[in-house]
């Protein structure tokens, strides 16, 4: 159960990208559904980050054991908490943090 430093750095990058993708999908909810500029722009940027994150994830899987990489993918939600607090003025409550720790622990138990 070890992970090399380059793969860990790659993990930090692709989880951040997945999170940024979701952040742009969230931004779409402020615009009307349809072919308007902000809806389409956010969709394209969101897809770019969401898709690139998924591809980097698959590449990382080639070099690392699934049992360690899979649970660590939930680091994505830590990035999401940071983005939500910084740009959407959402409060990151103790309940949310404890909940995320449960999810990450659960993910490890799931594949062990």
């Amino acid at each position, binding site marked *: 159960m070890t992970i090399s430093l380059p793969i860990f750095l790659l993990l930090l990058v692709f989880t951040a990208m997945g*999170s940024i993708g*979701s*952040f742009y*999908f*969230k931004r*779409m*909810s402020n615009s009307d559904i349809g072919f308007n500029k902000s809806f389409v722009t956010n*969709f394209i940027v*969101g*897809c770019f980050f*969401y898709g690139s994150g998924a591809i980097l994830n698959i590449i990382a899987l080639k070099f690392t054991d699934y049992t360690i990489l899979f649970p660590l993918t*939930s680091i*994505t*939600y830590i990035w*999401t*908490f940071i*983005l*939500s*607090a910084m740009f*959407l003025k*959402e*409060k*990151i*409550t103790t*309940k*949310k943090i*404890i*909940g*995320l*720790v*449960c*999810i*990450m*622990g*659960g*993910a*490890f*138990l*799931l*594949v*062990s």
Partner: protein
Amino acid sequence: MTRMKESYHHNKYGILLMVVAALLTAFGQLQWKISDADINLWLIGGFVCYFLGAVFMILAYRFGSLSVLHPFLSTGYIFAVVFGSVFLDEILEGKNLLGVVCIIAGAILIGGGDD
């Protein structure tokens, strides 16, 4: 407790849509696994489900906070485990089931965690 109720009330449709998105995403990944990365109907079906998962995720974000809804995608881990044991004959141990319980507990806390 009332605060948790309010959080659920505010995010309920978003949570529901996000769980559907997680189900579709996990089902897409299952089909990819069955396809064995060959070009066949399973592979195409996998892409269709994966894309629909993204559509439901985008819809979900209209009904709640990002920091509550995004972690609900982790319910897809549970669906993946269920699919694995039903369709791929993967063996589930006690600790794996404990993992499922932890993820559900985490999701419940986050769902009620908006302030």
